[in-house]
Structure formats: structure tokens, C-alpha cells
């Protein structure tokens, strides 16, 4: 029995009259890649926001390593080891790439403003070590030699990778990736998939993924949860999800399961 790093128990988030996420249970085992899929508006990003502390769920509770997250601020949650990226890239665009990663490391450093003014030993060593580590992360995501480029002047794919480097800077145990391959060409998508896999294999980071590209999802996920209209309609390994008639209906409409069966027989 593997330990769960994240447990969402009956998480419910309501906006006005709309129940965006409805009593969703999600259990994510440690060091796994967990995908959340579902049609547009299914509540995937809302669930992400509940985990990272942007929203407080109306009912239910999110546990991170057994600890409830209710009442914690987003920065406290980030300090516990949850990092995320965003569906529409949100970098600190006027800062350089290395500075973006350094901000990611913020909560791990101890130097204060007094250290900075007095130029203490702690300031110097921390600054040097954090820059070194930041460069390592930049190299890891494939942005070597771009450390002093302003984030805003980087191409789209590089910005996505920089977002991941910034998230890695905080040395997370859990990484939430919101559509990391959106808008990428097949080559870039392939590279991104490899990168995500390496994060789990080399660093043991747990990854929760929102993704629309089924090649990616089925290729790298250990587990998949499917949301539709705020409800979790399926949960399991990629194979199980592919065979689940409710999932197929959610994507293809009523009668979709029969259609899919017929279609695959013809093939």
C-alpha cells in the first residue's frame, strides 16, 4: 500500500448557483503521475485551485501528507511543497529567467533584508548557492545559456518550460501542471513529456497533470481521474479509463460508447 501525498475528500466548490466541483474524491499516491481529464468546464482547474489554496472549498477537505490545507494561505501551502504552473502562462515577465527561478526558491532561503544591506556571509553564500542551483534547473528544462534573458522575450515553448523551472526552484514534493503542452508542436510535446517523466523518475516528485492531449495522458499517467460537470465520473489506470463507457459518453455524447465500440471493431 503506497502512501497518498494528496487526498481530496468530498471537495465541493460552488460559484453562485454553479457547483464547479461536486464532492470529488481524489487520492494521489506518492511519486506518481496523476492526470485529471475531462471536457471543457468540467472543473479541472477549479480542483487545482482548491489544492493550491487559491480557492477554499465549501465542503470537504484537501489533505497534503495527511495535513488539512483549510485555512492556510497560498504562500504557506507553497512552502509546504506544492508548486504549480498556469494554464495561461504567468511568469514574472520583466524579470530575467534566472530571477524567475530565484523567486521560486524564495521560501527556502533564509537571508533577510538586513543581511542584504550589511552584505553578510549568509547573504553571500546563499546568493551564490541559489544562483548555482537556479542555473541547474534552467539547464534541466533545456534553457541553458538563457539565464539573463528577460522572461517576456522568450518564445512560447521556452516560457512554459521556464514556468516549470520556477516551480522546481521551490523544491516541491508535488507539482501541479495545468495543460503543460497546450499550444506546442509534436516535437515540443514529446520533449515536455520526457521532462515530466524525468521529474518523477529522477527526483521522485509527484505530478498532477491537467491535459487534453490524449497521447500524452495515456502515455505517461499512472492514474487518471475523469471529471464531467464537476463530478468525478471515473478513476483508474489508463487502460481502465479507455474502456470506461461513462468516459466515452462524456466525450462523445449519449450513445457514444456503442459508437466507439462499433468504430473500433471496424478498425
Amino acid at each position: 500500500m503506497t502512501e497518498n501525498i494528496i487526498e481530496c475528500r468530498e471537495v465541493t466548490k460552488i460559484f453562485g448557483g454553479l457547483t464547479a466541483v461536486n464532492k470529488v474524491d481524489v487520492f494521489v499516491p506518492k511519486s506518481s503521475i496523476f492526470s485529471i481529464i475531462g471536457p471543457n468546464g468540467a472543473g479541472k482547474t477549479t480542483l487545482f485551485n482548491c489544492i493550491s489554496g487559491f480557492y477554499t472549498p465549501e465542503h470537504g477537505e484537501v489533505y497534503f501528507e495527511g495535513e488539512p490545507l483549510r485555512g492556510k494561505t497560498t504562500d504557506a501551502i507553497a512552502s509546504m511543497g506544492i508548486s504549480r504552473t498556469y494554464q495561461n502562462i504567468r511568469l514574472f515577465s520583466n524579470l530575467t529567467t534566472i530571477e524567475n527561478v530565484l523567486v521560486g526558491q524564495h521560501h527556502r532561503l533564509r537571508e533577510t533584508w538586513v543581511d542584504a544591506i550589511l552584505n553578510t556571509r549568509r547573504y553571500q553564500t546563499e546568493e551564490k548557492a541559489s544562483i548555482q542551483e537556479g542555473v541547474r534547473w534552467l539547464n534541466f528544462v533545456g534553457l541553458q545559456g538563457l539565464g539573463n534573458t528577460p522572461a517576456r522575450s522568450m518564445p512560447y515553448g521556452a516560457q512554459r518550460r521556464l514556468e516549470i523551472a520556477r516551480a522546481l526552484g521551490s523544491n516541491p514534493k508535488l507539482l501541479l501542471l495545468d495543460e503543460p503542452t497546450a499550444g506546442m508542436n509534436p516535437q515540443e510535446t514529446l520533449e515536455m513529456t520526457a521532462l515530466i517523466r524525468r521529474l518523477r523518475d529522477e527526483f521522485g516528485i509527484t505530478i498532477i497533470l491537467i491535459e487534453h492531449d490524449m497521447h500524452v495522458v495515456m502515455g505517461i499517467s499512472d492514474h487518471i481521474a475523469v471529471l464531467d460537470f464537476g463530478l468525478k465520473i471515473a478513476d483508474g489506470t489508463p487502460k481502465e479509463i479507455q474502456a470506461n463507457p461513462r468516459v466515452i459518453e462524456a466525450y462523445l455524447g449519449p450513445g457514444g460508447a456503442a459508437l466507439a465500440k462499433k468504430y473500433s471493431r471496424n478498425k
Partner: protein
Amino acid sequence: MKKTYLRQSFDTGIIFGIVHIFCVLIAFNAMLGSLLAKIVNVTSSLTSPAVGALIAYAVILGLWAGIASALRQRELSDGKRLLASLVTGSSSGLLAAVLVGIFQLMLILNINPRDYLTNLSLPFMQACLYSLPGLLGILANFFTFLISAFVGGLLVVGWNLHGFASIRHQINNAPKNWIAKLRSGSAKKQLIQKYVFYALLFVLIAILPLEWGSYWNYVIGTVGLYVIMGLGLNIIVGLSGQLVLGYIAFFAIGAYTMALLNAPIPHNLMWGFWPALVLAILLAALAGFLLGLPLMRLRGDYLAIVTLGFGEIIRILLNSDLLTSFSGGPRGVQGIHGPTIFGQVFSDVNYMYLIILAVALAMYVYNRLQHSRTGRAWLAIREDETVARATGVNTNKYKLLALVIGAGFAGLAGAISAAMNQFIGPGDQSLMASINVLCEIIVGGMGNIPGTLLGAFALKGLPELLREVENFRMLAFGALLVAMMILRPEGLIPSQRPTLELPEETPPATSSTLTDAAKIKPPEENPHD
């Protein structure tokens, strides 16, 4: 084609002519002329300007028109460019001639336009006609423009002549070559050059306050205080991105702390300068902290309005009857004792040194903070507060810290200012002063030290120097701001992030290895293909 370029030149001239008429009607020509006259020690005033001063002004405008016109016809031959400048000169001269023609008529008919246009006195109009009788004055005006525009055209054409090519090249590249030469030396040589530069700068700073007299010490001292405030506000607005409008309130708190602790009336506490200085900084910082607590929930426009209110509350409190017995009310506090050195009261030179020290300290602190974890946290908050939080930055803490440190800077400036002027009143704490500091960092360039220096000189130093032409200060100011917004929307010196020295890492994860890794295991099957 021919018609077009002549028409263009004519239009350029008309524009310059209209500008000229406008300048004359508000006596700007007399103002500029009197500034020029001051250089050669000729007396010239706004009401009865010296003829030479007005001619000098007209020649400058004419030269400008000629140069502009010739530059505009870049692709034409030299002769045509000269013709263009001539046409420009004649059309602007024509307008100038019409204007002084009207002046001449008024002089003959004895009409005094002073009732409508306050600047147009009879001697002024007389001077605009170069004190020449009849048609001569009008013609002289016309030919001033024509000739100076032609000379302007000659300058442009001459500058582009082949013979000057090498000189032109040298002048254009001089700064670049000079810097390259400085950088080409060995590391040790560069270090020596750096130290020599700093030593020279130090000697210059040490000698200047002794040499240039009390007026300049006052002007530059005021600029220095504004630099400190600009840096403080830059921490709040430029780095942490909180638009705080009532910034002058912190200055007031610092100044009043100094005043109440070191003036005979109303309290006669006489703490001495240095303890009061420390307390002034601490109290201003405390005010920043207390103001910051309720502000943490606000962003953008709401923050600006609330801080604006805070500034006004402080000013109105200082002005009110309520606090008259405590802080002097509208009359302010007078006779503030300054610091002493070897039993002597601080002279203007000593104050200058004190301000230089304070500016150096402020610049040092600002610079250290900017490139630290704290500074990066501020910048992250400025860029995207939500994301900064989710990245692990305690935004409330850092926003408060920015307010506290920024307020401390203002407290320092306020305390020195109160001691230097030996007076502080509620009149100095107006909203305009807050906006001035904000303008200073916007004009100079948000979030960097050279920009703040330049902004302080442009907004506090220049108006001080132009004091005798007081009427035009606001005009020049407005024009400067409008021009800034069009030409350099990011300020005179836009901020740039530092280039950090990055270590070379040995095994880089190149994209090719990533691609290989991706080929490990393609997805087995796909449900929706």
C-alpha cells in the same frame, strides 16, 4: 515631386512661425533671451528685453527651423535641401513679420494691448521690432529667420559633405571607442581605473560644496533630499508596485519629529540633532507600518485613493486648531536647532556634506536591497501578486516591509530638511509635493537609481534654477511631461534587470537527450483516434 518638397518646407516654416507667435505672445522669447543674456552678463528683463537677447532667440529658432527642414529632405540633392531651408525660413519669417507688423501698427496708433495680453508692453513690442523704425523692424524680423534658417540648411548640408566624413565618423563613435578602450585593459588596470575614477569623484564631491557658494548648496541640497525621497518611493512604487500617493506624509512626520524635539517653541525639548534624526526615521517607519496594516487588502486604484487620503489627513491635522498647541498649527515651527560640529552650528557646507552622506547611504541601501532575495520578492509582487504568493512569497510581509523602509527614507529626508531650513510648516506637505516625488521617479524611470537622480534634477533642480522665470515653470513642466509620455514612456532611463554572473554547469540537459528519452515508450493505443 518638386512641388511636394517645397510645399513640405513651406509647411514646416508655418509651424515654426506659429510656435514663434505663441512664444512671443507669452514673452517666452524674452525669457529665453534673458537666460542667454545672463551668460554674457547683459541685463535683460521680461518687460524690457535687450534687443540682442531677442535676436539670439530668433536666430536659435530660425536655425532649428532650417536644420529641421533640410533634414527632412534626406533624399534630395544638396542644392534642393538648401532651397528647402530657405523656403522654410521665408515662410516662418513671413509670420514673424506679420506679427511685428501688427505690433508696429499698434505702436503707431498708440493702442496698448496690455489689457488683453499681460506680457505685451510697449517697450516689449518696441524690442521685438529691434528698436528699428517703420518697415525696417519688420524686414529685420523677416531676414533674421530667413538667414538663420539658411545657415541651418548650410550646416546640415556641410555636415554631410564628403570631406567631413572621417570627422563625423570619429565624433559619432567617440563614446563607443572610449568605453571600448577603457574595457580593453587587463583586470588589474581596470580596477585601478575604477579606483581613480572613484577617487576623482570623491575629491570633486568634497571640494564642490566649499567652492560654489550657499545658493548652489541650497539648490543641490534640495535636490539631494528629493533624491532620498525618490529612492524611498521607488522602493514602494517602483519595486513592490504599490501606488502610494500620500508619500509626503512620511516626510512630514520625520520633519515634525525633528522640529518638535529641537525647537524652543512649543516644547523646548532640545534633544539634539542626532537622537532626533534616529527617532524621526523610526517614527516615519512606524507610520508606514501602521498605514500598511489596513492597506494589505487593497490593490491598484483603491490603494492610491486611500494613501491619498492618509496624506491629506496628516496635512489637515497639522493645519488644524486641534494640534496648534502641540505642533504650531498653520504657523509651523520656527527656529529649529541644527547639529553642531566642534561647538559650531552647521553651515550650509556642512549640511551639504550631511546630505551627500545621506544620499550615498540611501543609494547604497537601495542598491543592496534591489539585488537581494527581498528585492526579487518585491519585483515578483509588482509583476503578479497572486502568482508571487503561490510561489511562496509572503506578500503581506514584503509589502509592509517596502512601506516601512520607504517611509524611513522619507523620514530621513524630512528630518534633515527641517534642520536645514530651520522651519517646517503644514504648507510644505501639500498633495502637490507627493505628486512631485511621484513625477520625479516616473520622469526619471521607474525603479532605478540613475533615473531617480536625473528625475530629481529635472523636477527639483531645473525649476529652482529657472526661478526668475517663475511664470514658465509650470508651462515647461507640462510640456516636459507630455513630451516624456510620447518619446520615452518608460522614463528617461528605463530600468534594466542586472546581468548576473552565471556559473557554467558541466552536464547540460540538451534538448536532444530529452528527445531520446521521450522515445522510450510510445502510448500503446488511443481511445479517440
